[in-house]
């Protein structure tokens, strides 16, 4: 707006050029010199891909299948006692219909007809002849489905089931996503029969034909990947590439789905940690002990607001929140808490504006944020991380991976906070920050737009190492069987199973190797970043 279009273009071009030789470009170049780190990064993409596509790599459901589905137009409800009654009558009367051979013949003929008509039990055979007549008469697909046969003085209600067989094609894995969301539901045959036991016309299965929780009853009790495994003739189930465990769950499938859990824990936990760490680190680093000045009334009201928000969310509505968490709705519980906090803080800061006009209340005082936050960090660091996580996990009644992620994240933020604090303590003295302050930008804007982007470099290192230790912690927790639900298959829980049976070496070797590779991968990326960001090593 201030400059003409030409000038704006020039500036944009200059920025573009600066980007090519900018800080991050150099870091990138430096990082790519470290071959191990680059390979780790590539491996990370691969592992991430596996985690994303876990459902398409190991699943008991086919990716695509064609199935002969028999749709039933009418269902019958013939009671057994009626049947018996009829039977006895027939025996007594010695009717011409009661010729089993004869009816059997008709039945055989009937089968060849594309649209079959099946009748239940003995009774159906009797009713058959009459119905066959009706077929011949009508010669159409749509036929009456119910017939009343009058026999002697007795009325017999016979229901005729007409069965259509149609070839239907499905994309079960995709459909499962919609089912999980509650948008669709499975047909009855898919619920009553296991996926691997269907007779498919045509099916494309994932490379591993088992989900992490599929139990292969024929191959339970620790089947070795190289030993004999039992499969029936027409089985859809593939070879257990990495063997099975006690209840017949496929180890390879468990590992593939464990990848997802591990990546999820790493990413979510570190996102939480980064958020908390950036918040506290930026606060203490940018303001230090002397820069945060606020009017007395603002400090007072904000403190009060904190107490009141705590009161409203944890005491007045404590049971509501705890019931929500108990039911597994951690996310909505957090939303409710945040809503309360925002509401109360909003009101408090709104009240500040008129009250600040009073000279005594409006007087500015400094708040030593740095000291407070450093003490907080010291408290968190004083308790061994694992013991702290274990103690917090222990108070949760219903274990879930979500809680584990949140807990790991809310405990591991201290290194990030420390890094960002150290960087900001340096950056805040630089001239461009002073310039921004001179412009009269708000502190929030300066921190978010000018200070933090330049302080992020060391945070990336902390995040890379943090992801490694978050994954390791999750694996450790599931290894000792704390905090992860029993039916969830993770690398750690698979490794734990190996202690039950020493001869099952595949349980000891593969899951542990996966943990090792992932942790090493992130450590190598972290190392690479450290080297790339180190100005001393830059030529």
């Amino acid at each position: 707006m201030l400059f003409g279009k030409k000038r704006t273009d020039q500036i944009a071009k200059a920025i573009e050029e600066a980007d090519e030789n900018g800080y991050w470009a150099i870091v990138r170049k430096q990082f790519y010199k470290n071959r191990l780190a680059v390979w780790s990064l590539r491996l990370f993409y691969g592992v991430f891909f596996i985690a994303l596509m876990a459902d398409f790599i190991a699943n008991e459901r086919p990716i695509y299948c064609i199935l002969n589905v028999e749709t039933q137009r009418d269902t019958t409800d013939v009671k057994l006692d009626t049947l018996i009654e009829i039977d006895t009558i027939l025996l007594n009367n010695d009717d011409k219909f009661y010729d089993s051979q004869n009816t059997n013949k008709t039945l055989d003929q009937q089968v060849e007809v594309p649209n079959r008509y099946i009748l239940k039990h003995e009774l159906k055979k009797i009713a058959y002849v009459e119905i066959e007549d009706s077929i011949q008469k009508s010669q159409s697909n749509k036929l009456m489905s119910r017939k009343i046969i009058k026999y002697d003085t007795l009325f017999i209600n016979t229901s005729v089931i007409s069965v259509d067989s149609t070839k239907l094609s499905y994309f079960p894995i995709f459909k499962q996503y919609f089912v999980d969301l509650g948008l669709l539901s499975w047909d009855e045959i898919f619920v009553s029969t296991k996926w691997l036991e269907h007779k498919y016309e045509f099916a494309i299965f994932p490379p591993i034909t088992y989900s992490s929780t599929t139990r292969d009853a024929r191959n339970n009790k620790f089947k070795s990947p190289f030993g004999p495994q039992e499969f029936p003739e027409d089985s859809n189930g593939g070879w257990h590439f990495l063997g099975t465990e006690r209840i017949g769950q496929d180890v390879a499938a468990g590992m593939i789905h464990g990848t997802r859990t591990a990546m999820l824990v790493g990413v979510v936990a570190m996102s939480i940690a980064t958020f908390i760490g950036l918040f506290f680190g930026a606060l203490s680093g940018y303001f230090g002990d002397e820069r945060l000045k606020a009017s007395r009334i603002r400090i007072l009201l904000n403190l009060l607001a904190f107490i009141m928000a705590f009161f409203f969310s944890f005491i007045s509505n404590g049971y509501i929140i705890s019931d929500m968490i108990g039911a597994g709705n951690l996310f909505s519980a957090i939303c409710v808490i945040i809503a309360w906090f925002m509401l109360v803080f909003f009101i408090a800061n709104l009240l500040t504006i008129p009250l600040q006009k009073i000279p005594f209340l409006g007087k500015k005082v400094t708040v030593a944020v740095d000291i407070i936050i450093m003490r907080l960090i010291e408290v968190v660091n004083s308790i061994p991380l694992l013991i702290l996580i274990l103690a917090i996990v222990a108070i949760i009644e219903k274990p879930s991976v979500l809680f584990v992620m949140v807990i790991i994240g809310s405990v591991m933020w201290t290194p990030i906070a420390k890094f960002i604090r150290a960087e900001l303590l340096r950056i805040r003295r630089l001239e461009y920050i002073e310039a921004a302050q001179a412009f009269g930008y708000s502190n929030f804007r300066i921190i978010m737009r000018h200070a933090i982007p330049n302080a992020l470099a060391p945070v990336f290192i902390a995040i890379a190492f943090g992801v490694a230790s978050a994954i390791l912690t999750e694996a450790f927790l599931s290894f000792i069987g704390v905090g992860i639900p029993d039916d969830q298959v993770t690398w750690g829980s698979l490794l734990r199973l190996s202690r039950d049976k020493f001869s099952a070496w595949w349980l000891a070797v593969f899951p542990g190797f996966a943990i090792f590779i992932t942790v090493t991968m992130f450590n190598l990326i972290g190392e690479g970043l450290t080297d790339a960001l180190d100005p001393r090593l830059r030529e």
Partner: protein
Amino acid sequence: MFQYIIKRILIFIPTFFVISLLIFGLSKLAPGDPVLVVMGGDDKGVGQRADIINGEKAYAEVAAQLGLDKPSFYFQFTAAAYPSDLHKINKSNHRETISRLIDLYGNSDAVMDYYNTLKEVQYKSADVSGASFSITSTTRESINGLFSDYEDGGIVYKLNLMKDHLLIDTTGMQVILDDWQVLIDKYNFIKDNPMKINLYIPTIRWYGLNTQFHTWMFGDYPWFSSVDSTNNYRVAELSTKIKEIVPQKRAIDNSISKLRGKNLKIQTKINNNPLFQNSDSLRQMLATNLMQIKQYIDHQEYFNDTLAVLSAERDSLSSIIVRYASKGFLRGDFGISYKDRKEVAVKIGDALYWTLIMNFFAILISYLISIPLGVKSAMWKLRGRKLIDNISTAFLFILYSLPSFWIGTILLVFFTTAEYGEWLDWFPTSGAQDYNLKENPNVAEWVKFVDILHHLTLPIFCITYGALAYLSRQMRGSMLGVIRQDYIRTARAKGLSEARVVWKHAFRNSLFPIITLFSAVFPRALSGSIAIELIYAIPGMGWLVLTSITSRDWPVVFTIVMFAAILTMIGNLIADILYAIVDPRVSFK
């Protein structure tokens, strides 16, 4: 220097209290009732009045012993709706029900009124006699259920169920039926008069010093005045005596009733069967039995008298004496474990023994190997010996990244059984020592020691290698940093030998990271061996932490976490002091 240390220690104090508050708060958030855990079972509360009262008494006693009958903290920040003496309600599930009801309706007076009525009805229903068994038992069970029900549907259902049963047959239950009307009226009053606004009015209540946190931290035992505990000893003595006498008395009671039964049989035999009427042997038996009974009765009287005297003294004394829950954490009283009522200090002491043994060797070995290895590998890098440098770096990196619980499992699976061949069964599968050897007095001490080492070899290895790799890498990194400095060049220029340059001038300055790490050694030793001790079934600290956290044995968890925090802080202080010793440039001003 001295001032600095004092200052640091002064900073510890608030940190220490914040940590204790954190852990205390966690234990308060944990579900479950510790008193019931200690009592070992769930408390039914169904039966005669005496049973109910005795059950409550026993519960209150255990709660008092654990210090759980007090308000939890010095002050309470809560809603105005909650009554200030909620902690006086005996049982935790009752407290929970009351506060849930208050949370639903906000009317604490009405809720307390309803609760007290419920309690009365419970006693009355326990007193009922002469009514049909099924009716009384259903009534009692529904009343008992009402104590832990706060949802409207559940309460109404139980009340209706009670009424339906009461109406079947009112013999002996008329009182309860009248009370039922009162109860439902009170419950409807709660529902009709909700005061939810009270839930949104904050209040602060001050409880003074006699609180759970204070008792745990400082104890309720007097600090400076000594306590006359002769009464306590006397009560304990009396209790043991009574405990000795009671079985003897029971045995005599039993023998008397047995002999009487025998006599009765003999008497009926004599009376009914004319064949035995003049049987001398039977009469003689009768006479001897009678004499025996007489003798026993004398004994019984003696025991009864003594018991009466002893229990009278005990009851009178125990009504006087003041019971103290704890001496407090600061005076080394860590309380008793919820799980087995053992003293926490004893449990931790037992566990610490193994952890210390393991970590002593682990730390020793890792430092002994890692420091020279780190320096050596730095030298390889400096002298351009690429191959060996790359190999050692890669090896150390892999060692550092290997999760110890994986290696522990692998070693356990392959080297402790004959599963993969006889020749691989090198180490024992689990435990810290062979119990046959430990109990055997004929075995020499050194054999036992060797046995322990044999058991602990794999665990120690698993703890060691990670620390070793980490330390070596740190050592190498800091050595490389130092060796590029100018003063090293000066030293070389002076013509000093390479060994002298490295070990005399560079080494001392590269010790910094090692010192920082040393501060974390103790707390890490505490928590680091959780998985290893679990894998190899060694009853050390990690194992204790894990089992007590999973069984919510908070006194043990409290103590361990507090010690870990204290050790971390002390470790930091020691590291700071060591800094000053190693590097004179560091000053504490």
